[in-house]
């Protein structure tokens, strides 16, 4: 079984700086981690591999330091890694990211399942998984909460939607985006860390994945950030102090507020 897991490196906290002119994130000087939701994708990939043998290849598009994210995935047990990195990829929106990752996957050749996180905690869109599936014309299951069975070249999954769990059967190759329920990510092992340290991780640019230059990075992105503004940290809300108003008045005011906002009918 050949599994590909695209993972993203994201800033550690909400404490991110923005280049107000370019509308992009300043990544320097902020600690980076593997997108926490991608750890679930890695974990379920490892479990599938343990049951059925095979190989897991992790791919990540980002600055050179995103290599550490790939090494972390390897120290958990993933086999190979490819870093997609080049100035030309900078400023990619989800269209350009999906394009570049799908080109990378094509280049890697044979695969049975692609597993992505449900969304990245920085951009917070959840569009890249379905985007890759669309570029590669792959059967897709989003919000996947369990892999029930793999047989006869088909994967049976459960996915969590608003009203319940839906069961789908997809022929392979296919793409799954997975949610937290699917697994509990393991920690890297010492042996895994040692193994990860000694691995070669190739760094590929647009030529290596045969991507059209005008379709990657900011030039290939249909969506443009035109303005960034920082809402006030405080909402400047109304504060009622019970040392100054009565309990009844405060309760009335709260109930009025809810009714006016249509939050209590």
């Amino acid at each position, binding site marked *: 079984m050949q599994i590909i897991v695209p993972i993203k490196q994201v800033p550690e906290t909400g404490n991110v700086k923005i280049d107000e002119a370019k509308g992009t994130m300043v990544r320097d000087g902020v600690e980076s981690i593997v997108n926490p939701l991608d750890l679930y994708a890695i974990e379920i990939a490892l479990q599938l591999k343990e049951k059925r043998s095979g190989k897991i290849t992790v791919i990540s598009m980002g600055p050179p330091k995103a290599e550490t994210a790939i090494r972390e995935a390897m120290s958990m047990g993933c086999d190979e890694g490819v870093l997609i990195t080049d100035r030309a990829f900078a400023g990619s929106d989800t269209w350009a990211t999906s394009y570049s990752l799908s080109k990378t996957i094509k280049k890697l050749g044979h695969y049975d399942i692609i597993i992505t996180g449900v969304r990245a905690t920085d951009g917070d869109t959840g*569009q890249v998984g379905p985007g890759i599936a669309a570029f590669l014309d792959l059967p897709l299951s989003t919000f996947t909460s369990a892999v029930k069975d793999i047989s006869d070249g088909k994967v049976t999954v459960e996915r969590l939607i608003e*009203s319940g769990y839906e069961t789908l059967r997809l022929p392979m190759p296919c793409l799954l985006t997975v949610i937290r329920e699917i697994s509990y990510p393991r920690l890297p092992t010492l042996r895994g860390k040692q193994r990860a340290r000694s691995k070669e991780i190739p760094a590929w640019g647009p030529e290596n994945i045969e991507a059209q230059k005008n379709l990657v990075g900011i030039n290939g992105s249909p969506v443009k950030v035109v*303005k960034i503004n920082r809402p006030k940290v405080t909402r400047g809300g109304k504060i009622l102090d019970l040392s100054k108003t009565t309990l009844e008045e405060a309760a009335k005011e709260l*109930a009025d507020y809810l009714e006016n906002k249509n939050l209590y009918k």
Partner: protein
Amino acid sequence: MPNKSVWTFAEQSEGRLKSVSYELLTRGRQLADKLNTDLCAVALGKSINIRDINELIHRGADIVYLVQHPMLKHFLVEPYSQAIEYLVKKYAPDIFIAGATTVGRTLMPYLAIKVNTGLTADCTGLDIEPETGNLLQTRPAIGGNIMATIKTPDHRPQMATVRPKSTNPPPIDESRQGEIIEVQVPQDLLHTKVERLGFKSIEDDEGNLEDAEKVVAGGRGLKKAENFDLIRELAEKLDAAVGASRDAVDRGWISYPHQVGLSGKTVNPQLYIAIGISGSIQHLAGMKTSETIIAINSDPDAQIFQVADLGIVGDLFEVVPAVVEELEKRKK
């Protein structure tokens, strides 16, 4: 044929349109009026209730494009995307918006690639740039610290999703006239190799926190497990899910799935009421993008008041019962 029209996606389940389908008409109507063009709703399914389709018109749609086929009974991304791609090529809409539901979040990113355009997720604001007629899409970026305004200048349609319950549907006007256009999508576009084997619905008595439109959350100020009943009582009055700070969870007053924050769940509801929660950075990380935040805390300097739209400084053991009583009085 309408020129450069504004489209909304009318989502259905079991032949009935979901409320988000009507809500989107509020956004769509504003945009269509600014552009002086038609508002069209697109409904896909198998035998969709005709009264619901008419309601789209009564609530503001000028045209409903209706595609009905057994393959469209349940949402499956390929036939849905292929059918809409066919409509998009045929009618060339300028703007297409859908709800940020699990259907919208699956269909829209897939479709955007197929029709070769951009997509902005979870917009909180949609507007038209007067000079260019371009759609201005505003969304919180990176944990809600900043708002980004986004454009799709060179690709059409301009696509966006918006959160359900973020607007009210327009009122019903039964005298409103509109057109229902049944479109036959070529059979060969309505296929998928994915089989839908079954469905198991979930009943969660305390609600699914992440999808909840309202959350009432309690923290260490509650002092002991039994007092969480105060939170549950208020939540029940408001039809809200129950959340908690990590401190409350760590003390075993409520189970981990209720934890909101950095190491718990991220919620983004219409209403978040924080009770006896100080508002640590880690807690704020999980809820600060909520549309409306109300805080009840005895400490006037508690950080939670910084993000509150309405705050009550007082003893929760007095305030919460008073609020419950007041809401009870107003129940119609």
